[in-house]
């Protein structure tokens, strides 16, 4: 009796096949949106799980990101006597990059993994098959509500993250390091542009990241082999694939939106 050796496969082909299947799954999800409206309560329930339940981690991380950023900037800018601009730089960095990207990474770790594990276990315990047998479309009842909930929750969570980061920056810069309160806000409001920084930065990016993370999480859950090892691998793949997709997509979006 010998242990089964892991099969060596063509990695590139495997990744391309996964991307192709994921794209087809997206079409299935979108086609199921009208049918999933019948299960609107399920969408709101999922919105609570992936959105409201992620608030604590998002708010805490947002606060500390803003605080650290201000601390670093203050020390660098003080060399050039430009500490009054630190509030503005914190805001721009958070709105344009850190807010959407860090929120998405946290969302993938907190909500994405739980979506994958939950759907994977539902598959492993025949719950998905049971729904099929009860003539309930599992894509419309399980997958689409989670996808939509992620899509709706991400921009909202990103706004909360950004607000907490600016608050953290203010806390360190103004309360602790002594930057003038008026200078902090006036520099920020003078430079931050609603369309470029808020709409393109916060909302558009986070919407795109929300779609990608939710899609990957739901896809991995639905296609996982129905074993405990399969669910564990799928959960890991959700984090890895989401993180790579977020950073790659961030570069593409930034290049087009700048």
């Amino acid at each position, binding site marked *: 009796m010998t242990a089964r050796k892991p099969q060596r496969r063509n990695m590139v082909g495997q990744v391309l096949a996964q991307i192709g299947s994921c794209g087809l799954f997206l079409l299935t999800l979108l086609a199921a949106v009208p049918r999933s409206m019948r299960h609107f309560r399920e969408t709101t329930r999922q919105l609570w799980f992936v959105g409201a339940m992620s608030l604590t981690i998002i708010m805490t991380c947002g606060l500390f990101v803003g605080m650290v950023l201000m601390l670093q900037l203050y020390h660098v800018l003080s060399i050039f006597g430009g500490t009054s601009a630190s509030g503005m730089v914190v805001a721009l960095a958070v709105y344009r990059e850190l807010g959407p990207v860090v929120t998405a990474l946290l969302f993938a770790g907190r909500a994405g993994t739980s979506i994958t594990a939950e759907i994977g276990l539902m598959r492993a315990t025949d719950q998905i098959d049971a729904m099929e047998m*009860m003539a309930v479309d599992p894509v419309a009842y399980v997958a689409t509500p989670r996808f939509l909930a992620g899509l709706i929750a991400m921009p909202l969570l990103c706004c909360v993250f950004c607000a907490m980061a600016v608050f953290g920056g203010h806390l360190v810069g103004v309360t602790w390091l002594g930057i003038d309160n008026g200078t902090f806000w006036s520099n920020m409001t003078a430079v931050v542009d609603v369309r470029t920084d808020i709409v393109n930065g916060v909302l558009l990016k986070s919407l795109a990241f929300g779609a990608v993370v939710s899609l990957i999480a739901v896809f991995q859950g639905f296609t996982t082999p129905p074993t405990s090892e399969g669910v564990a691998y799928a959960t890991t793949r959700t984090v890895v694939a989401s993180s790579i997709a977020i950073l790659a997509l961030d570069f593409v979006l930034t290049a087009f939106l700048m």
Partner: protein
Amino acid sequence: MTQADRSQPDDSPLVRIRGLTTVLNGKTIFDALDMDIPRGRVTAIMGPSGTGKTTLLKHITGQMRADAGEILVGGRNVAGLSRDQLYKLREGIGYLFQNSALLTDFDVFENVAFPLRQHTRLPEELIRNLVLLKLQAVGLRGAARLMPNELSGGMARRVALARAIVFDPGLILYDEPFVGLDPVALNQVLKLIRTLNQTLGITSVLVAHELEAVKQVADHVFLIANGKVVAQGSPEAIAADGSPWTRQFFGGAADGPVPFQYPAGDYAQALGFPGVTK
């Protein structure tokens, strides 16, 4: 599957299987299998483990496609149905899963109410009464607010049974309904299957290994092995059939046409005694 299918007085089979051929991972599960499941009766499908009894149920409900052959349920070819048509057909079929497959997010009551909530717009009061009626029938009305992880295996199967019959479907497929039941629960489940059949005319197909239980409830038994029906008839007739298949299966002997061992290489060689032959 509709009420009309159930009340039709004709003797035509409700499920007609012709030339069913299925190959899974290179192993032939069904080899041109023919089977007629009579309408309004309790039919048991028996056979050694791994002969494809559950697979056969999955073919009947369209969960799995066969490599060849056709399955007609209520006169409709399952393989030719669109997704919506298949779902419509399944609304009239109850299915008891081998491992219960209860929805773990919902309590017992909501699990049984799930099909009603998804397919009807019945008032809450009526849903409550229907669910309690079914839970009372399986002896678990008092467990309505327990979560699936608080149930024993036998209790979970009875909840799954209540869910399978909540619509009073025209056809119920039971996959191993007697596993994990204590003698009292077993007796009650047997009575329930019989009552559903006699009072509502529900066609029941059950996959089981317990010959004594099958004798009490089934009108007709199919014994399948090696991808074909090797014996069929009433439970009494099939038990007294005397063919090598039935003698070995119901006698429980290791030697005979039903192999106990999964196909494998030479035993002595596997143990490291290459010189030893049978």
